[in-house]
């Protein structure tokens, strides 16, 4: 996917995508295996309910950040990100459906490089925010 062009972008424009529907526990296992974070709170129902005291396993925050990353790169293209950061606001549980929105908040130039700044929000099926964040990507003039 080619880089975005400054001339085609408008501050206030938004891009929304469903990131995952009815999140499965198996995807948490998949993420644990790929990322190397085997914390049993994400995969071990017996541990998490009987020892840790949660109602069930919950998603790695970094899985939600990874899912939201897809929204960002689908918008700005591949290999253009210069910054991506999030704050984990609420936990994500199996069965959740997550929807992410990126809003263009600035189109600017820094040291001859054109950049777009995005504000990111990912919510669950109850419209509760699960992460908020920002991203910046290189764009063409």
């Amino acid at each position, binding site marked *: *996917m*080619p*880089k975005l062009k400054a001339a085609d972008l408008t501050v206030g424009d938004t891009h929304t995508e469903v*990131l*995952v529907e009815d999140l499965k526990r198996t*995807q948490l296992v*998949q*993420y644990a*295996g*790929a*990322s*190397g*974070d*085997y*914390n*049993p*709170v994400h*995969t*071990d129902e*017996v*541990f998490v309910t*009987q*020892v*840790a*005291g*949660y*109602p069930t396993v919950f998603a*790695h*925050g*970094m*899985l939600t*950040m*990874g*899912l939201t*990353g*897809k929204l*960002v*790169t*689908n918008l700005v*293209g*591949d*290999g253009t*990100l*210069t*910054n*991506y*950061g*999030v*704050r*984990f606001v*609420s*936990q994500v*549980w199996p069965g959740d459906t997550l929807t992410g929105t990126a809003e263009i908040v600035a189109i600017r130039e820094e040291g001859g490089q054109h950049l777009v700044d995005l504000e990111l929000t990912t919510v669950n099926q109850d419209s*509760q925010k699960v992460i908020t964040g920002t991203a910046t990507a290189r764009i063409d003039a």
Partner: protein
Amino acid sequence: MTAEKFPIEAGHILLFSRAVGDPNPIYSDEDYAAASEVGSIIAPPTFVQSSAQFDPDYFLRPKIDQPWFGSGGEPTGIKKEKKEGESSGAAAGGLHAEQHYEYHRHIKPGDVLSATTFPGETWEKESKRAGKLTFSESITEYRDQDGELVITARGVGVRTEKIIEG
């Protein structure tokens, strides 16, 4: 996260992109990637978190001949009396509050990174829902085989007094 050698491999990138539900061929299809503006397969934005796989001391990975706190025949692998109201998050290493990446260049198969983590600031906050929150920041520098800084990561962890649900 500290790793002397974090080899960036196409298979690992494929598994990671599947886990985050991203079918973008830039993460898996060499021919597609070669013909793209980027020119090669690259790793997804949050991929360097998996440097945990190459950190010999990473405490959230079961290790051969060491006790593990996940369940086996017993609900926990470690025999430990749990105090009333004690934070489970602490037992599991706390919760992740923030994560930020600065990309100096995008990494690709064949790169061999090193990861070095430095402690950042710590601070406290009172929360009605979770009691006293203790935040601690860590900065991880990922450098390539030429010693060039490729990604700077800043993580913030939080330990809570009480369990938070949702």
